């Protein structure tokens, strides 16, 4: 074995997986995991831990893996994270824990994410369940939203003995984990459902089909329903559009709509009722993780797919692994390209997209070089479907119906980073609703911080 290299992970062949929705990465088996674990030198002052937003004791759990004590390893992780099978799959490890791993200085970092995933999958297969607390403290907390922020906050509070109820607007718990991230990256039945069930095991109740701000309000939860505190983890679910001509044509979708139809509503499965129009030639506008997910989904539904992104490859905000997977599967990248207009036929359907070529100019406020239009570069991309993946912002449903809950100019809820405290007494918030669209693990970190904040508030109240 070459200690400078990760133990390779098995993946579905690109040609095969481009036609199915099964998971791309197959993960390590026990032997592979134990072997990879030997590469970790169990640093006294582990840099990797400082890169993990929930500070998982990484050398601690890897040591157990190395010795083959997987159940012990899972107990170590469980102290810090309620969703290890999720994070092991979708965390941007390369810019977090693994980026700081000292193995990475000379060679490849330890494959922390894949090891975490292995431990979580093994625990599920061996039916290891978390233990609920022995006594309850008699205090009730409401959690709004069942995404990673809400699930983490709820799980942590339940462990401390709180009586926690999660209210979820959709018919299924999980937030972006169920409606956004596709099956081939994050299996719903096995991985997501199990981790949510584990949160339930801790005593957390989940009430679906409740839209806070409509079905009931935060104030009613605090007064009529007897909750002592509320955590808002409502995410950033409002899709942006470009505002170009033709954008309301049939065949133009937000990535949220396209992914929701396929993931939450399971439109790819014939036996489900919700329809989806996949198109034959699809342009996905944007370059983030969401754009890669939409593109790879359209591909699996049988389309030729183009990613249309206005900057160059170096600026693609998506994870390197996702871009790599997308290319392997045959997604075409039209970089330095920006849409100007969607062409519409007489029936209101998309018949093409007018684009211009871009070149990179001076760096802008974000430090990235600003794309500028190349003169006389207009051309028409021959597509019948356009998926807009331009980012999302927090939904104003809650802020607009809650007196005293301050938001900033991007409609993000104002909350203290350390303890999740908002401008309204007893109300805490975290995750994408506070930061704008970010990552699973940052949302979990915020949920954790808020659980601590709520516990401090209610213990002294």
């Amino acid at each position: 074995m070459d200690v400078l290299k990760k133990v390779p992970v098995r993946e579905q062949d690109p040609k095969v997986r481009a036609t199915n929705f099964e998971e791309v990465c197959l993960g390590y088996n026990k032997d592979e995991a134990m072997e990879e674990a030997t590469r970790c030198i169990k640093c006294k002052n582990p840099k990797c831990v400082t890169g993990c937003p929930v500070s998982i004791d990484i050398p601690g759990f890897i040591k157990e893996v190395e010795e083959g004590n997987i159940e012990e390893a899972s107990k170590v992780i469980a102290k810090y994270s309620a969703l290890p099978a999720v994070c092991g799959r979708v965390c941007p490890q390369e810019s977090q824990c693994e980026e700081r791993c000292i193995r990475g200085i000379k060679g490849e970092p330890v494959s922390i994410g894949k090891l975490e995933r292995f431990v979580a999958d093994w625990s599920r297969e061996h039916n290891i369940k978390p233990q609920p607390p022995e006594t309850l403290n008699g205090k009730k907390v409401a959690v709004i939203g069942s995404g990673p922020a809400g699930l983490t906050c709820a799980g942590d509070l339940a462990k401390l003995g709180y009586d926690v109820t999660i209210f979820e607007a959709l018919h299924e718990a999980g937030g972006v984990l169920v409606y956004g991230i596709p099956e081939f990256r994050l299996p719903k039945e096995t991985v997501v459902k199990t981790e949510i069930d584990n949160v339930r095991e801790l005593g957390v109740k989940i009430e679906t089909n409740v839209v806070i701000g409509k079905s009931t309000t935060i104030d009613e939860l605090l007064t009529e329903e007897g909750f002592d505190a509320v955590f808002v983890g409502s995410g950033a679910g409002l899709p942006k559009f470009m505002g170009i001509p033709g954008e309301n044509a049939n065949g133009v979708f937000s990535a949220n709509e396209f992914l929701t139809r396929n993931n939450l509503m399971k439109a790819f499965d014939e036996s489900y009722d919700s329809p989806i129009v996949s198109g034959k030639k699809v342009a996905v506008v944007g370059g983030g993780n969401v754009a890669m997910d939409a593109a790879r989904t359209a591909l699996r539904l049988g389309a030729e797919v183009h990613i249309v992104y206005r900057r160059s490859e170096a600026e693609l905000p998506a994870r390197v692994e996702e871009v790599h997977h997308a290319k392997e599967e045959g997604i075409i990248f039209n970089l330095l390209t920006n849409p100007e207009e969607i062409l519409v036929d007489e029936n209101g359907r998309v018949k093409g997209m007018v684009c211009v070529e871009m070149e990179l100019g001076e760096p802008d406020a974000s430090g990235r070089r600003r794309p500028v239009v190349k003169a006389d570069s207009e051309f028409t991309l021959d597509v019948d479907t356009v998926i807009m993946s331009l980012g999302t912002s927090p939904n104003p449903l809650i802020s607009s119906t809650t007196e005293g809950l301050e938001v900033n100019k991007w409609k993000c809820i104002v909350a203290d980073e350390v303890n999740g405290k908002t401008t309204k007494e007893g109300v805490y918030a975290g995750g994408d609703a506070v930061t704008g669209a970010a990552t699973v693990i940052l949302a979990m970190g915020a949920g954790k911080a808020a659980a601590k904040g709520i516990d401090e508030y209610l213990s002294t109240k």
Partner: protein
Amino acid sequence: MYKILKKEVLANNIYLMDIEAKRVAKSCFPGQFIIVKIDEKGERIPLTICDYDREAGSVTIVFQAVGASTQRMAEYEVGDTFRDFVGPLGCKSELVDEPDEELKKKKILFVAGGVGTAPVYPQVKWMKEHGVDVDCIIGARNKELIILEEEMKKVAKNCYVATDDGSYGFKGNVNDKIKDLIHNEGKSYDLVIAIGPIIMMKFVSLLTKELGIKTIVSMNPIMVDGTGMCGACRLTVGDEVKFACVDGPEFDGHLVNFDESMKRQVMYRTEEGRAVLKLKEGDTHKNGGCGCGGDK
């Protein structure tokens, strides 16, 4: 799970159901809607709240079996349950927030087309409960398709029925009736609320624009989540793009781009047709031809 407490057939293919849904019943208002999902595999079907009983914790919906999902819903009976039922969604009708005194000063005409009578009903009932007299036109292609006439008569000051073929009431469409009321019966109105097929709302809005009467319509574009998350329900109002599920469903009829909305409504026509076929073929199988003894 949400239990069906009552089921009635109002007309051929038009059904009324009372559903037990305590949270919705407690907080809903006229103008809002719910989304129902029949079972695990069902799609999310938006339907207007047609009535509600806060004490009993029930909500009334009225739906027309137009496609695979609504046909499947129509097979459900009292005592059965729907897996999901979420609401109230959308904004309540603007009228609900106006002081009664202001409302009483207005001369309001409701125009209901076909199943659109169902969403009009709670608004007219609200007016009655707040002492406001309003007029209402119920329009349909023919007599068989007129629903909730008796109920409406109890709450509207004047309730007129118009059928395209003259099989009942006034002969002509709702626009003909509006003109008849204004030109022949000396009526005048400050506000029209029109709910029905898009094509009807479009033509009523064109007429009332000519007549200079402010008009509210209730839009029902294709929806998925109903919470502002997907943008499927977007439509153009004036020069703005709105999401009907959170910004509406009611909008100023003189500003809505109806032609665009009509095109968007048929976006999934092929897939929907296929679904109906699948449902039918499923039924054929169930009712025999396969030797399973399901034949009558």
